[in-house]
């Protein structure tokens, strides 16, 4: 990527793995647990967060020198809220079923710790281009985990991917179901999402020992 300098590349790539907002910083867990029962919802959620965080970081970065620091949280909230309303309206207009499924969680992007975290930690102190990359990077890192969790939960919990049955028909007993396989109902419950995230954290930290915190 000649387009980006080494430093800029790191802004995008670091959050994907070794500085992942979910598995390393342990932010944004709530939505990761709530909406990942289906892969489709995970993907839509990821795209929404990519949009909100990318644009939001740029807006905050542009305004960073004129925001009085005493009321910066309120200003940040207004920016996120505006963007989230845009996302919400677009979803309602073009993907009504899905927006009903995601229900309040689209609105709750406002309270997603990752977004406020990046505003505070990065956009307030860096230029718009860098902030944009940082926002995209962190949102991608969030999305990657959401999609991994969503993939396993939908596959093992419902036997489908993106709503398409991939393991056979559980009622007609075709495919895997003909030899006695059954869907794992536990996968559809939120506690299992926490366990799946925990397993990802486990795998990641045992591959890269540097990530293990000292207590």
């Amino acid at each position, binding site marked *: 990527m000649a387009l980006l300098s080494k430093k800029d590349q790191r802004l995008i790539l670091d959050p994907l793995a070794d500085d992942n907002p979910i598995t390393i910083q342990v932010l944004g867990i709530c939505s990761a647990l709530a909406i990942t029962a289906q892969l489709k919802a995970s993907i839509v959620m990821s795209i929404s967060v990519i949009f909100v965080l990318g644009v939001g970081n740029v807006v905050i970065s542009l305004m960073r020198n004129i925001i009085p620091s005493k009321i910066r949280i309120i200003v940040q909230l207004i920016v996120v809220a505006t963007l989230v309303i845009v996302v919400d309206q677009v979803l309602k207009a073009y993907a009504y079923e899905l927006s009903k499924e995601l229900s309040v969680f689209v609105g709750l992007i406002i309270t997603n710790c990752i977004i406020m975290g990046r505003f505070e930690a990065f956009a307030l102190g860096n230029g718009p281009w860098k902030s944009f990359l940082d926002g995209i990077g962190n949102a991608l890192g969030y999305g990657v985990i959401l999609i991994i969790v969503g993939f396993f939960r939908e596959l093992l919990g419902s036997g489908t991917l993106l709503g398409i049955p991939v393991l056979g028909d559980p009622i007609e007993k075709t495919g895997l179901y003909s030899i006695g*396989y*059954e869907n*794992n109902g*536990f996968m559809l*419950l939120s506690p299992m999402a926490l366990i799946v995230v925990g397993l990802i954290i*486990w795998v990641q930290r045992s591959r890269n020992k540097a990530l293990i915190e000292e207590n």
Partner: protein
Amino acid sequence: MGLKQNLHKLKLKYEGKKMAPAFNALHTFLYSPNETTHSGSHIRAVDDLKRTMNTVILALVPCLLFGIFNAGYQHYLATGEIEAAAGFFSTNFWNWDNFAMGAWTVLPLVVVSYGVGLLVEFIFAVIKGHEVEEGYLVTGMLVPLIVPIDIPLWMLAVAVVFGVVIGKEVFGGTGMNILNPALTIRAFLFFAYPTWMSGDKVWVHQAVERAGTPDAISGETILGSYAQNATVDYDYMDMFLGFIPGSVGETSKLLIIFGALFLIFTKIGSWRIILSTLVGALVMGLIFNGVVDAGWIDNTSKFYGLMSVPFWQHLIIGSILFGAVYMATDPVTASQTNKGKYIYGFLIGFISIMIRVFNPAYPEGGFLAILLMNVFAPTIDHYVVQGNVKRRMKRLKVKTA
């Protein structure tokens, strides 16, 4: 020289290599090791982890045997091939047909439970380079006893992997686990495959396959019947002796009491926990009986069936007794302080009956209550210890003042 020496040689051969823990485990499981210390004074106690575990397994054997006979008995009783047993020594119960049918269905559960569980333990020991721990010996025996007879074996295998890895290994292995692994396995099965873990079909062998055919048989558990406000056609003696449908090893209260006495006598199980669990269950049962007697609810309520069960009867239906004796007393996950044990046990009994009555979908609340209290056990201990420290500090102040 024999087997012991050969095992020792194998051990030496693999010393320092990757597979060392596996051979080591095999050797020390069968014999005491060759290396002993020669100097200094040592206190040597024989009640090590292996002895403790084996004692619990011995206490479980009667339950397993009864479970094997009961599996066959319930099946043949439901198909109408034998008459109901009268008395504990009835030949309708203790016969070869029952044993053969029961062994054919129960032993695979035992084999899968031990096979998969020990395999996971060995893999973790080899990866982490520590000794294989004996922790699974009891869990592996408990698991077949707390599942329905017809649970598909692959589900059991998946659940065992989950229970051993998530319930135990991620916390650091035997002795470090917060949750009882056997109950973690049951909870996993319960939430993952509810159709195989509850209802009126899974408790009697082949009831699922026969559903909807002219040969259909049913075996609702007593708790299930009560939860639906239905009448129960077992008398108290059947419940006490265990001639009822239920999970494999939890039906015979008589044998569980023998097991409990054995554990208490050998000082492996804590009588404080067992006693306070039963007291907790009785207290909750009395409260519910009081509610019914006071006329606050009538038989239109969906809780009426279970609430109106005489309080003492809660102890002989469902698995509260089995849980109290074999699960709640797990020394790793229970409270460690004596005062804490009373609180811990009391709350297990209390909450078990509460879940049993208030959530008809989970008539068997015992395992959830124990898991919950497992989580709270360290907190209870903390406050007991702190309370003790405070009291002594006060005493000290009075003395020095």
